[in-house]
C-alpha cells in the first residue's frame, strides 16, 4: 500500500510538473491574435429615420396626428477604392398604408481624380436641396420648401448615366455634374384632368425616344469653402408619349442655388444660409376639360412655373453653456407659382420657423411652426398653419 501511494504521488506530481513545463511561452500552441485585417470588399448600412407629432389648422379645420416613423436605410457596397454600389430604400406610413420607395440605386466608378461615372437611379444635381439636403436629419425643418416633393416643379431623381467630379483650383473649388436620363413625362389629363400639363418625374420606362440632358456647375470661390454658388439646367425635347399629340412637347428647367456656412466668432456661432430658385418652362399644348354635363372644352395656358426658398439658421456653438451650444434657430421662406389658367394654378407663400436641439451630430429634435397662404392649388387655397414636433436620427 505504501509503495502504491508513493507511485501514485510520483505519477501525480510528475504530471503537474510536465504540464507546467509544457505551458510556457516557447512551446505554447496558442498564438497571439493577428491585427484586424479589413476585407477588400466592404458593406455598410447607413441611413436615417424620423417620427413626430403634427398639429394642422387649415381654414379652421383642425387635425392632429402622430406621423412618420419613416425609415430610410442606405446600403453601401464598396468593391474597391474605385467601385461602389449604393442604394437607398424609403419606408413610410402614409394614408394608413406602408409605402416603399427606391430613392436611388446606382453603381459608381472613380475614373480619375476629377471624374466619376454613375449609372442607375440617382439623385439629380438640380440645385442642392434634393441631392444633399432633403434627408430628415440634414433638413433643418420638418417640412420641405414649396416646389419640392409631391407635385413639385423640381426633379428629384432620374434613371440614366452621369459624369461628375471636382477640381481644387488652389483655394477656390469647382464641381460639376452632367447627366442623361429618361426625363419626365407629361400628364396629359386623361387620368387626372386637374393635373393636365404637369410633369411627372417618376419615368421608370421612357415613354419616348428622347432623353433628357442636364447638369450642374458649382463654384466655391473662397478658400474656406464657406460659399457655394451653383447653376443647374435640365432639358428634353419630348415629354409626351410617342405617337400622341403631346409627343413633341419640350421642357427646359433651370435652378440657381446658393449656400453660405461659416463660424463667426463675433456672434459666437455658425451661420448657415441656403437658397434655391427653380424655373420650369414647358411648351404650350392644348388640353381637354370635360364638364359635368359631358361637354368637352379645349384650353391652353402659358406653362411656366417657378419656386424659391431661402433659409437662415444659427447655432451658438461658441456659447459657454453646453445646452446653448446644442440649440439651433431656423427660419425659412418659400414660395411657389404655377401657370395661370392651369387647373393646378397656385400662388403660395410659406414661412417656417424652428427651434432645434441637437442630441448628437446626427440626431435632432425640431419644434417648428409653419404658416402657408395659398391661392388656388389642390386644396383650393387659404391659410394653413402647422405646429410640428419631430425627431430625426441619422445612422
Amino acid at each position, binding site marked *: 500500500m505504501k509503495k502504491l501511494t508513493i507511485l501514485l504521488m510520483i505519477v501525480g506530481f510528475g504530471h503537474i510538473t510536465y504540464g507546467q513545463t509544457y505551458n510556457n511561452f516557447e512551446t505554447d500552441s496558442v498564438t497571439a491574435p493577428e491585427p484586424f485585417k479589413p476585407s477588400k470588399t466592404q458593406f455598410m448600412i447607413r441611413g436615417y429615420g424620423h417620427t413626430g407629432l403634427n398639429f394642422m389648422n387649415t381654414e379652421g379645420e383642425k387635425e392632429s396626428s402622430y406621423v412618420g416613423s419613416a425609415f430610410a436605410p442606405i446600403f*453601401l457596397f464598396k468593391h474597391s477604392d474605385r467601385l461602389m454600389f449604393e442604394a437607398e430604400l424609403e419606408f413610410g406610413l402614409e394614408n394608413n398604408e406602408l409605402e416603399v420607395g427606391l430613392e436611388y440605386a446606382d453603381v459608381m466608378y*472613380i475614373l480619375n481624380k476629377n471624374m466619376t461615372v454613375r449609372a442607375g437611379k440617382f439623385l439629380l444635381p438640380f440645385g442642392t436641396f434634393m441631392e444633399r439636403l432633403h434627408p430628415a436629419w440634414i433638413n433643418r425643418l420638418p417640412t420641405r420648401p414649396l416646389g419640392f416633393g409631391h407635385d413639385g416643379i423640381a426633379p428629384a431623381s432620374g434613371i440614366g448615366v452621369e459624369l461628375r467630379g471636382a477640381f481644387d483650383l488652389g483655394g477656390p473649388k469647382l464641381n460639376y455634374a452632367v447627366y442623361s436620363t429618361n426625363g419626365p413625362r407629361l400628364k396629359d389629363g386623361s387620368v387626372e384632368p386637374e393635373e393636365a400639363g404637369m410633369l411627372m418625374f417618376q419615368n421608370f420606362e421612357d415613354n419616348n425616344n428622347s432623353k433628357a440632358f442636364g447638369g450642374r456647375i458649382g463654384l466655391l470661390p473662397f478658400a474656406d469653402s464657406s460659399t457655394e454658388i451653383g447653376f443647374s439646367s435640365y432639358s428634353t425635347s419630348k415629354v409626351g408619349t410617342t405617337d400622341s399629340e403631346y409627343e413633341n412637347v419640350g421642357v427646359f428647367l433651370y435652378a440657381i442655388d446658393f449656400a453660405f456656412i461659416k463660424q463667426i466668432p463675433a456672434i459666437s456661432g455658425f451661420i448657415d444660409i441656403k437658397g434655391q430658385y427653380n424655373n420650369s418652362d414647358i411648351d404650350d399644348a392644348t388640353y381637354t376639360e370635360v364638364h359635368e354635363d359631358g361637354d368637352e372644352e379645349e384650353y391652353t395656358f402659358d406653362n411656366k412655373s417657378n419656386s424659391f426658398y431661402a433659409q437662415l439658421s444659427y447655432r451658438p456653438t461658441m456659447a459657454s453653456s453646453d445646452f446653448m451650444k446644442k440649440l439651433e434657430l431656423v427660419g425659412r421662406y418659400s414660395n411657389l407659382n404655377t401657370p395661370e389658367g392651369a387647373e393646378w394654378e397656385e400662388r403660395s407663400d410659406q414661412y417656417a420657423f424652428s427651434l432645434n436641439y441637437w442630441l448628437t451630430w446626427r440626431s435632432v429634435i425640431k419644434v417648428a411652426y409653419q404658416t402657408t397662404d395659398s391661392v388656388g392649388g389642390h386644396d383650393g387655397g387659404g391659410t394653413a398653419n402647422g405646429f410640428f414636433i419631430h425627431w430625426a436620427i441619422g445612422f
Partner: protein
Amino acid sequence: MKTIHKILVVAVVIFTTGGMIVGCSSTKNAYTAATDVQDEFKIEKSGAQMWGEACNRCHLAPSPADYNDTDWSTIALHMRVRANLAENEIAKIETFLKSAN
C-alpha cells in the same frame, strides 16, 4: 424650346468628351504633391480643417470616434461622390478621421 435643348445637348457632349479626353489622358491618379519650391510658399489646410469646412456645408461634422477605419473608407468614397468633393479634400479628411477615431 428645341433650340435651347439642342444647345444644351451640344454643350453636354462637348463638356463630357473634352473632360473624358483630358481626364483619361492623365497618368496620375493620386493627388499630386506640391514641389519643394511650392511647399516653401504654400500653407496647406489640415485634414481637420477640411473636415470642419466640407462636412458642415450640409450637415454637422461627424465625430471621428463613431466609425472605425474600415467604415470611414467606405463613407469617404460615398461622400466623395455624393457631395462632389475634390480628391485631395476627401483624402485629407479620411486620413484625419482615421487618425482621430
